[in-house]
């Protein structure tokens, strides 16, 4: 079991001190399940490869850039995100029921899962450790502006902060505001600007 650090938080990231014990337990479980014929070891490798290479925030960035570049696509995305995202070839687990929510000067959207760590895998990949942390899950609904400030985002008091707690099987993608000064950029150039955090709603997209 990992231990608490001096700051008391769950060490769920790079400097975590996961003892070898957990790795050994996983190895024993895997070999048991393989020996019993319950799982195909090559399938395990294929699953790991899929989530390392096929999904990730570049997928979502392409969706956002297309929506910025093509008003008809944006309308389809806001009306039926699952279908619009599938147009670009992204679909699957934890993205079966997608909704896209648009940031505007009047509304700033941000996404959390207070009960676990639900996240739209096909467009954003697997969630970062901070998204899964107890701090983010507990505070985002009660103190969203404080959380956003920690991420370097000050939202005006005149703007509604709308928090989406994905308590069911609907998954949310934030469509960030297109930054000024990007009018001449190609869709590919726009894609490179869009960050993972902007699609969770804890950051804005900046012009280069």
């Amino acid at each position, binding site marked *: 079991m*990992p231990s*608490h650090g001096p*700051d*008391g*938080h*769950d060490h769920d*990231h790079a400097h975590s001190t*996961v003892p070898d014990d957990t*790795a050994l337990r*996983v190895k*024993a*479980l895997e070999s*048991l399940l393989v*020996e*019993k014929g*319950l799982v*195909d070891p*090559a*399938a*395990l490798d*294929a*699953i*790991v490869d899929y989530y*390392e290479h096929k999904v990730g925030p570049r997928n979502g960035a392409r969706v956002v850039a297309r929506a910025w570049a093509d008003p008809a696509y944006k309308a389809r995305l806001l009306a039926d995100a699952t279908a619009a995202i599938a147009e670009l070839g992204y*679909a*699957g*687990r*934890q*993205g*079966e*029921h997608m*909704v896209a929510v648009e940031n505007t000067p009047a509304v700033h959207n941000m996404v959390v899962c*207070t*009960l*676990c*760590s639900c996240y739209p895998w096909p467009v954003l990949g*697997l969630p970062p*450790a*901070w998204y899964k*942390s*107890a*701090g983010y899950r*507990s505070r985002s*609904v009660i103190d969203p*502006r404080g*959380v956003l400030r*920690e*991420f370097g985002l000050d939202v005006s*008091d005149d*703007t*509604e*902060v*709308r*928090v*989406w*707690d994905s*308590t*069911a*099987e*609907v998954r949310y993608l934030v469509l960030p505001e297109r930054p000024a000064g990007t009018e001449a950029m190609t869709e590919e150039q726009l894609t490179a600007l869009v960050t993972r955090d902007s699609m969770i709603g804890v950051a804005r997209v900046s012009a280069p």
Partner: protein
Amino acid sequence: MNGVHDMGGMHGLGPIVREQNEPVWHAPWEARVFALSAAIGAWRRWPGDASRQQIEQMPAADYLRVSYYEKWLHGLTENAIRHGLVTREEAATGRPDPLAPKATPPLPAAQVAEVMDRGGPKTREVARQPRFRIGDAILTRNIHPLTHTRLPRFARGRPGVITALHGAHVFPDTNAQFQGENAQPLYTVRFQARALWGEAANPRDTVCLDLWEDYLDPA
């Protein structure tokens, strides 16, 4: 259940620590736990809702102490035992019972991408007609089940407004108990932050939750 997993609105649960250039996994065993969970899921012995419930029922101190994928490991191991894929003795020793027949994996490597791409939609065709319409004012029920629910404590007994209808979705509260899918209308409900947190909240701010019809009464 009113577990520590239901942490929306709690204080003192630690800082939000961001990591630059974070890898997908922080240790190879995390990737294996993830992959084992997906591959074992193909046996369809228990629904994802039961996996969530298993994790939620960890002792609260353990839940807060262990890492994300250690929770998955716990859920996977306990459900594999409970639903007859392995015995507790096999899980403890890592060695299969020599008398147990060898199975054929239901998810071969060649099918992984297709199965992941397909996912598992939770919408169902049902005769039940939605009780509410967009714009309706509702009051969430004040319920405290001992088992899995998706109605967080902070949103119980609170007034909100229906802003979307998502069709009929499998109801996790019964599905996690093997009491049937009980698919029913799922709505987005918007709550004023002040209705949840009091006058200190910004009067413009809102929180949206996706809630099943059985959680809602007319306001």
